[in-house]
């Protein structure tokens, strides 16, 4: 059992949890993820490591409540326990050389996995330009944290309730136009359509772009192949070969399609869960 040490509500749907997992914390590096199960009948879901504290032996996860499992996770409070918590899985992100200029793009709950990477770059003495975006101001997370580790921070909202009214790609395009040649690398994490849009944009400027993928997984150790993704024409397992890949090589259409495999079942699970909650649970 893994104890939830702290819980923070970042927005209506985004929550942060610090979980006691000393073995995982000892090894965790930016870019890696964990897999957890909420309860005995639960599914295994991968979540990116948003932060880790070796001394306290804790891992921070930030998640958006979208389906049954994340909503159920959201009902737990500090002091509660998770049934399973395993990691760190996947490869750590390679840091660009110290001379490089980096633009980091985070969309929605994707700001959470971007944050530890920017923090690592910042700690390595690099200057990072960050762009974060969300549908609306209330859903924007980690703004202060991102500002603290970024040289410049640009904020966008789809509905214009904060910062630039529009997409992160609008801001990114301006930056690329202004100082395209100075930028060595772009790191983008967010919803698939955002990562695909960023990738398409940066391809035309020929700037190396890394994305962190979050496909459906089961074991997370390369055993099942559920998370396979075509990268540069080859099948890769996101859990062991990634989750960070060169965006320009990723087949986003296939990835998007595969992420829809269980839409129907996800809907059923969620409806059942909501119904149980309304009727006060079956216990």
């Amino acid at each position, binding site marked *: 059992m893994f104890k939830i040490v702290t819980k923070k509500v970042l927005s209506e749907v985004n929550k942060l949890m610090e979980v006691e997992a000393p*073995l*995982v914390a000892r*090894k965790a590096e930016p870019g890696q993820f964990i897999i957890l*199960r909420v309860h005995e*009948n*639960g*599914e*295994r879901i991968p979540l990116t490591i948003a932060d880790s504290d070796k001394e306290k032996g804790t891992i921070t996860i930030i998640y958006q409540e979208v389906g*049954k*499992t994340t909503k159920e996770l959201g009902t737990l409070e500090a002091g509660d326990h998770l*049934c*399973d*918590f*395993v*990691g*760190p*899985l996947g490869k750590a992100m390679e840091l660009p050389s110290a001379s490089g200029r980096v633009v980091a793009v985070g969309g929605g709950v994707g700001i959470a996995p971007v944050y530890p990477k920017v923090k690592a770059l910042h700690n390595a003495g690099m200057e990072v330009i960050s762009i974060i975006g969300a549908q609306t101001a209330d859903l924007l997370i980690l703004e202060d944290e991102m500002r603290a580790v970024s040289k410049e921070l640009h904020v966008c909202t789809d509905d214009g309730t904060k910062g630039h009214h529009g997409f992160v790609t609008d801001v990114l395009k301006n930056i690329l136009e202004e100082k395209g040649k100075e930028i060595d690398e772009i790191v983008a994490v967010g919803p698939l359509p955002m990562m695909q849009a960023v990738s398409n944009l940066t391809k035309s400027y020929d700037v190396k772009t890394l994305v962190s993928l979050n496909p459906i997984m*089961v*074991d*997370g*150790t*390369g*055993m*099942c*192949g*559920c998370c*396979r*993704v*075509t990268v540069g024409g080859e*099948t890769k397992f996101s859990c*062991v070969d990634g989750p960070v890949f060169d965006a320009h090589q990723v087949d986003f259409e*296939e990835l998007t*399609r*595969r992420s*829809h*495999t*269980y839409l*129907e*079942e*996800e809907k*059923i*699970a969620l409806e*059942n869960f909501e119904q149980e909650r309304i009727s006060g649970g079956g216990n």
Partner: protein
Amino acid sequence: MPLDKEQVRQLRRMKEKHPMPEQDPKERIKNFDEVPFGYDAETAVKEATRCLQCKKAECVEGCPVEVDIPAFIKLIAEKKFDEGIKKLKEKNNLPAVCGRVCPQEAQCEAFCIRGKRAEPVAIGRLERFLADYELEKGVETPPRPKSTGKRVAIVGSGPAGLTAAGDLARMGHEVVLFEAFHATGGVLRYGIPEFRLPKEKVLQREVDYIASLGVEIRTNVVVGKTITVDELFEEGFQAVFIGSGAGLPQFQGIPGENLNGVYSANEFLTRTNLMKAYLFPDWDTPIKLGKKVAVVGAGNVAMDSARTALRLGAEEVHIVYRRSDKEMPARAEEIEHAKEEGVIFNLLTNPVKIFGDDDGWVKGMECIKMELGEPDESGRARPIPIEGSEYVFDVETVVIAIGNSPNPLIPQTTSGLELGWKNTIKTDEEGATSRKGIFAGGDIVTGAATVILAMGAGKKAARAMDRYLQTL
């Protein structure tokens, strides 16, 4: 009542094994309950009486874990079941598992003298009988030996790891067993279906028995990620056994393998067995199946996948295999059960392409007919495509069950390990690797093989580790 002389004489002449009652195929494809029910005591005693009690018992040579087969069978014939199970467990830590999943026809029973003119003694069924008898009655834990104070880490809780762990604990060593998943058993848990190996009733209780021998089990630890083998030594373990299995699914590399509706057998079975997708939505993990399912391959994993697909509600399930029925690597009983249940066998057939609809879901598979040529390096006839014989068949789900390679996580993260073909770990006959104190066995050494061979390797390695630990 003991059997009289005439009864014994008749039984000794009986040509066939006593049949084991099982669920009707029409019924059983609607549930995940175990297929065979096992012998009752009376049948077991009768079947045991068929054994000729050879002085030089060749069956034992066919057993990778060296069970004294005539001895335990004799005890069954004498109705001394408690002594029988003790005898069996002297060598085999997982008899309820072996009695169900061993390919006995290729091992102990293949050597049975009775098999030369008639059917061999049903050694597997008798083993299962004793194991189930004990599970029913309550498993006895042997007294713990005095601790040697030596600490051993076992990586992977599959058949190799469980066996090594159990044996080393019985030798008095302090054993910690690490498992990457949230539940123990390895392939016994995620791979072999409930209807062949019940998880709570059988597997969990065998694992509990191993734990009761003094083995500490730590789940949710991915050795190679959470902690490396080198770090295990730093933490004070004096020897490490690697039994991490063949957990890397192979694909054919044909177009369309990443379409929605194509599963590796590992994923298909893990979702169903470990994650209990057949109980969705009571359990959270889903699985999605079309009406028509094709399973590529003809090993045990392929049979398990095909029979699982039927139970998940598929209307038509096909095995697609590039060689003929003679070369099918599955256990005879699995092939028989699959046929009884209505699985359709498309032999001498190889997929060349999988087609998808506009939304990217599988809708068909192009196959080519094959013929057999000269034997290849595996000793089996080489399948050769017949030009122009391509055809398309409609199918909505494809399960690829053409084999597994060793999982590279540990080979890649452990310094100084000599590796062989496809990231297998090289060992000597007794499981010693190129690095002092590190031993390995099971599929990580041999590539995908059987449960019992993995157990045999675990047993040999445990002995070698014990000797090694005594030198420290």
